[in-house]
């Protein structure tokens, strides 16, 4: 059953159309992440769900109950929707200390004192702010402030949680811990969660469903695997994955009974199941799927190393292949690649093709994870 | 005026206006006690003292006295009546134009003269409205600097030596000051005579000026008159001792009392031509539809002084106690130089020996009615030049 339904939602700010038309179904208990470039309407979508913003037209259904409908004029105000919300700007109350910021809603709901205290202690512990309950928000660092906002959500225990970049100001370690914490909360409360993030690792690791938006329009909606491996279009392909996927222009043609892809002077074999006619085509390959070899092979392309950027467990290598920039990711820490004579290879089964409109060309029988087994 | 049955009924019930009879005072007092209170709207703070004194005589009747100043007294009565609220019993205020020509014909007030006083008050002071006291503006000079009055006629004030050295309260916003100007204008022929007598030549009116009264005001203002907002300060400015060049002024003459209390040297040049005194009345009346009409009558009678008061009554300061109070009653609080009862049988207060003999100019109600607006406009135009 779907817990949150947005039907044909549009939202404009004056003449600016932030959401042209949005349809979204979020099943009960699922964890949905909204992903998309800055300014694409993620926050707006959350605000429409929460009722903080009224959609210009459309309908919002929460838990089977219509809470907004431009047709009938129904509007349930946010305070009666029973949601948890973390604001991108924290929205901490400057006049209250941390503890009061966290427990206000509880004490307003006339919870017993003991419960409030327990929840406060628990929430503070979870966000690792124990001991700072007595500070004012202005006496906290940026990350600490953000954690207070998270603690407020944790303490409230709502059944629908909306979080707008709740971890953006935290360091990796803390962020990983908080991620686990939020995920656990999600499980424990069986809470339907809509999560906005710009961090792909977060999106891909935490979500049941990832929704990729662009300019207020949903581009693709699916499991993290689908989004990563079968991007619906060029935009999704380029947006998901860090470093960015490599794109090339090639020409599909037949070479005898085999189909081949012509790219610059080389040819690359392609899967036969590709449902698309011959001619120019855009193809993409993720940096981690490009192999760097030290000997020229039949399908290898000569490359020159440009920049080497180690990121810890991996190293991003920018290469120049026949004048084109290619990014390769290797699973090692590397500060320099000294050798000049290197070649790269594109494994044929790792290529994704896009037609002229930018939509992915499907394969006849989609290949499921089989080739990814270690 | 159209007949108004409700008004008529009230008059009849309260025995006022045409229904006024020779009062049976015992009855009035008994009824007044039944009514239990009397509400007085007054333009002066002295009324609070009168209220106190009244309480000594009639402790069963509560006096609620408001000190509002003249324009607010009138405003309050009018607004209440317009709203159908009849709260006031006695209205006490100067301002002939409003009291006589607005409130009276519009039934906001009704004239009430205790019957026993009818023959003791000149008709001009009881019709159309009862005058409670006569007050006056006088010309003040400093008798320490000038043992003799420095001027003989009002016109000398328009000469250069008094340039910037004559002050008066602004008539804008002060009905009484305006009354004084009205009396000067109304008696313009006397002004003219005084001029011609003093200078021995014909008065030449400036262009656009109507008569000698206006001409005097015109020249006075032209002589850099100093306008003040406060009479008491004027009295101080003139009368303070030790000044080399004290100014002269128009001032309410009851500030002569400051000569005793504050050792000032104010004096009035009683022989001034045409006159050094400009008198004006302060009225008292029963409010229209007064809820406590008997108490109101009693209060008015009290204000006017007792029956037993006569020219040979022995009155001793402080007047608001003992025998004097019994005789003066409501007059006691007013009994000082500058506030004079219209009753012919009341002895003048101390230091006012000159009062009965001195020349006084007064504006008649009709003249005020027809000209006061014009005078006020004239003043405004002249002072803004």
């Amino acid at each position, binding site marked *: 059953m779907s817990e949150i339904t947005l039907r044909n939602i549009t939202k404009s700010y004056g003449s600016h159309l932030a959401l042209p038309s949005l349809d979204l179904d979020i099943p009960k208990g699922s964890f949905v992440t909204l992903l998309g470039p800055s300014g694409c309407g993620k926050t707006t979508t959350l605000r429409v769900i929460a009722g903080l913003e009224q959609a210009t037209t459309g309908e919002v259904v929460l838990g089977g109950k219509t809470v907004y409908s431009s*047709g009938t004029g*129904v509007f349930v105000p946010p305070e009666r929707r029973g949601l948890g919300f973390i604001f991108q700007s924290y929205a901490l109350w*400057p*006049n209250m200390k941390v503890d009061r910021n966290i427990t206000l809603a509880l004490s307003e709901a006339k919870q017993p004192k003991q419960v409030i205290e327990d929840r406060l202690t628990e929430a503070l512990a979870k966000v690792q702010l124990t001991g700072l309950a007595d500070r004012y928000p202005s006496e906290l660092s940026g990350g600490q402030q953000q954690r207070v906002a998270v603690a407020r959500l944790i303490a409230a225990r709502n059944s629908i949680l909306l979080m707008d970049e709740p971890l953006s100001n935290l360091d990796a370690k803390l962020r990983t811990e908080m991620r686990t914490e939020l995920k656990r909360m999600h499980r424990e409360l069986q809470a339907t969660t809509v999560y906005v993030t710009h961090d792909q690792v977060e999106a891909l690791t935490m979500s049941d469903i990832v929704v990729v938006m662009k300019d207020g329009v949903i581009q693709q909606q699916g499991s993290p695997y689908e989004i990563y491996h079968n991007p619906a279009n060029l935009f999704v392909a380029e947006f998901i994955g860090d470093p960015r996927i490599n794109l090339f222009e090639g020409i599909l043609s037949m070479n005898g009974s085999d189909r081949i892809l012509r790219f610059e002077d080389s040819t690359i074999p392609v899967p036969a199941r590709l449902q698309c006619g011959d001619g120019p085509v855009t193809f993409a390959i993720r940096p981690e799927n490009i192999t760097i070899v030290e000997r020229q092979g039949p399908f290898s392309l000569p490359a020159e190393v440009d920049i080497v950027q180690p990121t810890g467990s991996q190293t991003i290598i920018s290469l120049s292949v026949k004048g084109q920039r290619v990014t390769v990711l290797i699973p090692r820490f590397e500060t320099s690649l000294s050798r000049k004579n290197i070649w790269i290879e594109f494994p044929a089964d790792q290529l994704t093709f896009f037609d002229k409109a930018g939509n992915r060309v499907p394969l006849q029988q989609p290949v499921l994870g089989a080739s990814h087994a270690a | 005026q159209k007949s108004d049955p409700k008004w008529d009924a009230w008059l009849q019930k309260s025995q006022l206006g045409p229904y006024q009879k020779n009062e049976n005072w015992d009855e009035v007092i008994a009824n007044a006690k039944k009514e239990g209170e009397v509400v007085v709207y007054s333009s002066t703070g002295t009324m609070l003292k009168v209220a106190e004194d009244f309480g000594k005589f009639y402790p069963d009747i509560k006096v609620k006295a408001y000190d509002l100043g003249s324009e607010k007294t009138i405003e309050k009565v009018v607004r209440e009546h317009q709203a159908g*609220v009849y709260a006031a019993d006695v209205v006490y205020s100067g*301002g002939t134009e409003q009291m006589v020509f607005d409130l009276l014909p519009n039934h906001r007030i009704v004239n009430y003269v205790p019957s026993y006083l009818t023959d003791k008050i000149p008709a001009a002071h009881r019709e159309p409205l009862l005058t409670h006291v006569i007050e006056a503006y006088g010309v003040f000079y400093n008798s320490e600097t000038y043992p003799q009055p420095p001027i003989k006629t009002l016109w000398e004030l328009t000469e250069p030596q008094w340039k910037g050295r004559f002050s008066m309260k602004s008539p804008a916003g002060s009905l009484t000051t305006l009354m004084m100007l009205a009396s000067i204008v109304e008696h313009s022929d006397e002004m003219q005579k005084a001029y011609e007598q003093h200078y021995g030549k014909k008065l030449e009116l400036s262009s656009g000026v109507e008569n000698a009264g206006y001409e005097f005001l015109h020249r006075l203002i032209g002589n850099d008159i100093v306008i003040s907002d406060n009479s008491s300060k004027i009295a101080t*400015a003139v009368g303070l001792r030790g000044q080399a060049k004290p100014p002269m002024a128009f001032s309410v003459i009851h500030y002569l009392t400051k000569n005793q209390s504050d050792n000032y040297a104010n004096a009035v040049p009683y022989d001034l031509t045409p006159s050094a005194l400009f008198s004006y009345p302060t009225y008292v009346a029963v409010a229209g539809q007064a809820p406590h009409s008997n108490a109101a009558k009693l209060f008015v009678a009290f204000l006017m002084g007792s029956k037993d008061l006569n020219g040979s009554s022995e009155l001793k300061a402080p007047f608001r106690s003992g025998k004097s109070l019994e005789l003066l009653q409501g007059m006691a609080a007013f009994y000082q130089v500058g506030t004079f009862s219209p009753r012919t049988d009341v002895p003048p207060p101390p230091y006012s020996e000159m009062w009965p003999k001195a020349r006084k100019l007064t504006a008649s109600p009709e003249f005020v009615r027809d000209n006061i*607006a014009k005078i006020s406009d004239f003043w405004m135009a002249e002072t*803004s*030049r």
Partner: protein
Amino acid sequence: MTSSAAPVQTPSRVPSVRAVVGHLWHSFTQPERLLGILLAIVLAGLVLVPLFELIRETLTVQPYDRAYLPKAQPGEFTWFHYERVFAGRLSWAIFYKPFFNSLITAFTATIICLAFGAGFAWLIVRTNIPFRNFLHTLVMIPYMLPSWVMALAWITFFKNDRIGGASGAFAYFFGVQPPDWIAYGPIPIIICLSLHYYVYAYLSVSSSITSVDSQLEEAGAMAGLSRLKQFLWITAPLLLPAIGSAVVMTFIRVVGSFGTPAVLGMPVRYYVLPTQIYAAMGTRNAGDGFLLALVLVVLACLFIFINQRLIGVRKSFVTLSGKGFRSKEIDLGAWRWPLFILIMLLMTAAVAFPLVLLVLQSLIKTAGNYSLGNLTLHYWIGGGGEGVDQLQAALVDNGNIIDATWNSLKLAFLTAMTTGIFGFLIGYVVVRTRGSLTSRTLEMVAFLPYIFPALAFGAIYIGMFARPFGPIPALYGTFALLVLICSVKTLPFTSRTGIAALLQIDKSLEEAARVQGIGWFRRMIRIIVPIAAGGLLSGMLLSFISIMRELSLIILLVTPSTNVLAGVIYNYQNQDMPQLVGVATVLLVAIVIAVNLVVRAVSTKTRVGAV
């Protein structure tokens, strides 16, 4: 309901009807809309009715007009007043000249007020100037003194022989008579008004400045702006709502102030609009008086309109977002003490001098004699002695003063509360519905009572509340009516400061509470009110102070048993008893200062406002 009974064949109509009903219902469920409607109705009754009454009187024949219009009946329609004031032979004297005089004094005074007020506010709130708490109280005292005290002090000091009497202190000490232009006329008027009314700007700006995030100024510093430029380019524009309010309040109040120009302008015949209004009303020429007052009303509307334009709809003044607020003290360095001394000097002139004069006035037996033997405490503590007026009870057993003080306190307190609540609500609605017609009109209407001639306002309320009206019983003669009229009259203080304060609060602070299921009322109590409290309190303080001193507004409405302190002072003044005037005034000032101290102590203790 219609939906269940609706026949199947009209499906297209049903939703549209329901939609309309739904939308209506919906707009009612939005607290700010609902409130807006309610407030509009209430204010229409309380403000627009008197306004129409004023306008009506300018358009009808008044009793006083008989002299000009012998044939007309009072109450008839006429353009007479308009012609007379704007186009007649006397229009120069009645209107144009005083009007230009007013504009000149008011503009100049407003600019000075703004400079003083904003400067003090910045110094005291933001910097490490010494004795900040003390200064905060000190700089408000000039407003607590009745405005005529300042004028009186000026006259006493700079008086020359033009008005006679005792010579002024200046002439006494220096042996020269100060020229007229120093003693009287526009310059002293401007100075006295400025020293009195800069407090509006101070209060309004100081409460706003506390909620300006220091980081915004710091960002200016990083952009290389000097301290002054940071203030001018960043802080001041962010304070625009507060400054705008201050300008509107100050200008309108200054342009409408009567006492000071009366004392200082009259000796040289320098007339301003209020003296003309007073004159017209005093001669019961209500038509002219109200018309001149309407000019002020129009002026005020114009100002508010400009103010609304400046503030705009899109521009944001939110300085209190839910993120990273910092408030930092600015180090004045070497300027610390010189600036402190400068303020102290100014305050000596504006506070100490008039205050000493007042105290002296309450101690002196006969005026003008300042010898030690001529001083007495009789008027304070009784005991009599030679040369005192034995009939005048001293303060300690003067039931008159004590009752009146109590009444004044009660009235001022209740008014501050009522007006605080309404001002906040109006501010809230105006800010939340910003840009809409409701917002603009509400803001304007809430300000109008400010410039109504006080006396006429009271008079009109007699008519409105003499009889029961709908659910409201007849209030005339009750204390409630006094509170009501005072609240309406001082509404501009709180609504303006409320608007300024609320403009600085980010909506998300309320939304954060909203999504957590905290209802409207609780949100206000818990979050918005505490954060806006600084601004609200200063507005309430202004209301409190002005009601403590108010007389003309309520004089027609009070009963003798509810006499107020200002009424007592007025009576004593009329009866020429300067000592008791001094006693009562000093008492008034002392009370206001005490209340101010208490409010401040309480508000810092509960940490009101942002920081």
